């Protein structure tokens, strides 16, 4: 997630416009992370909103602007866990429909694309929420295992092994041309 450090500095000094710009620039990445983790669009939006409220309240205490993104993901990962526990109580399950949007008509190999996305979304739904968090932060945001460990509050070794296991699980569920 790309964050403008200047905006963080200004927002930490109480600049509402700067915080607004931060909000709009980070929203989509945080929303997608929540959506992958929770599997419910409404719950993801709630988790992200709660996260931004906490960010707004705490940003004046942020010492290092470059820590904004990891801090945001850290808060969001806890929020997501809370949302998941609420879903469990409501007996809801991961909704892969919220993850998939039919690609535009002009896309090449449309049917194949839809089918692949659906298969992957289904495979992701079978992972643990933390495995989804780790793979999303690693693949889509390019964070290292160490950075991810800090964000989700886990030892680095745990993150590394979980990421390996996640790939192994996805491999088993999706099959692979290069199956060993």
């Amino acid at each position, binding site marked *: 997630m790309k964050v403008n450090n200047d905006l963080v500095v200004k927002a930490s000094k109480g600049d509402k416009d700067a915080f607004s710009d931060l909000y709009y620039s980070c929203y989509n990445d945080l929303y997608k992370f929540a959506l992958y983790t929770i599997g419910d669009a409404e719950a993801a*939006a709630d988790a992200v909103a709660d996260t931004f409220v906490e960010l707004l309240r705490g940003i004046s205490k942020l010492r290092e602007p470059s820590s904004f993104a990891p801090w945001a993901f850290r808060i969001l990962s806890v929020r997501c866990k809370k949302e998941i526990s609420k879903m*469990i109580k409501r*007996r809801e399950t991961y909704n892969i429909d919220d*993850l998939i949007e039919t690609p535009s008509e002009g896309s090449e190999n449309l049917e194949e694309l839809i089918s692949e996305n659906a298969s992957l979304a289904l495979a992701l739904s079978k992972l643990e929420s933390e495995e989804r968090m780790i793979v999303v932060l690693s*693949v889509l945001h390019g964070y290292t295992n160490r950075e991810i460990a800090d964000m989700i509050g886990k030892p680095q070794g745990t993150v590394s092994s979980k990421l390996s296991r996640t*790939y192994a699980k*996805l491999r088993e569920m999706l099959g692979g041309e290069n199956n060993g």
Partner: protein
Amino acid sequence: MAEQKKDFEHEIDEKIRCLDSNIKMPEIPDVQSIFERAEEKKTNLVPFGKIKKYAAAAAAVVLICISVPVLGTAFSPTPEDAPETARDIKFNLFSDKVSSDDAVEYCAEEFETEAAAEEAPEKPIPESAEEPEAFIQDEGENLRVYNALINFFEVPAKEELKDASSSVSSSSASDNPATGGSESDDGSYGFDDLSLLEENLNKKRSIEISVDKDSVSVILFDVSAGEEIISAFWVEGGYESSHKDGEKYIINLIKPVSPEDILDGSYIPLAGDAINGTYEIPEEDIIISDPVEKGLFSIVVEIDIGTGEYKIYASLI
């Protein structure tokens, strides 16, 4: 081999990025809502002085609750029979009006009375009652339970069963305290739709049990670093009790069965989690008492506190 593994990981990464580019994105909510909520939180904060007063009052209540059973233990001739500890009292506060024995007797009486009131002749299900084992072999369903329940309720003809079931279920749904029904006349059986129990099991684990009218949801947390969910699932049934037993956590539930449940085919207790969805308790985990005396399921959930793995057993009693 390692090369192949890396190739597959790259392939997966590409697929994830492709999926990501096709994610449904909602319109971003107005940032003003965030500012307003942050302001709300500020104004809703309770002054620290009041918090201290409430905390002191709460501590006094807790001390009283603890001291009563402890003193009772001191004078009890048999310590094993002493009143429950404060922890148990805390968990049973909402269910002290609904003891398992009361609920069992209430349910049993309710169903037995209704069944006995019917004058229709006893009519076991053809073939299944006479040759239950052959039927089970052929059908492969949990007909052990079905047959046991049918025999217990002494099911009459189907039309009469429907009449009986509607009167039983309408009364049981509203009055059955085991399923959290509405208050009785003296208000002694009502409790909130969703009651929440939380307990720290050890330095690394805490458990949260949400009690609903007809089910219990369980979440086991790893609290050693943040609050990671180790295990989360729900079980159908009315909450009876729960306690820690060494490295396991035990939850007891009951599920009464009505003739209507048998008609619906919904007599096997259900459970579920986010990944597997809803499922029936497997046949091999259901024990049938001989004889069936109460027509209800006693359900026991065993959770391994370390791993989060859980097992659900049901006894038809």
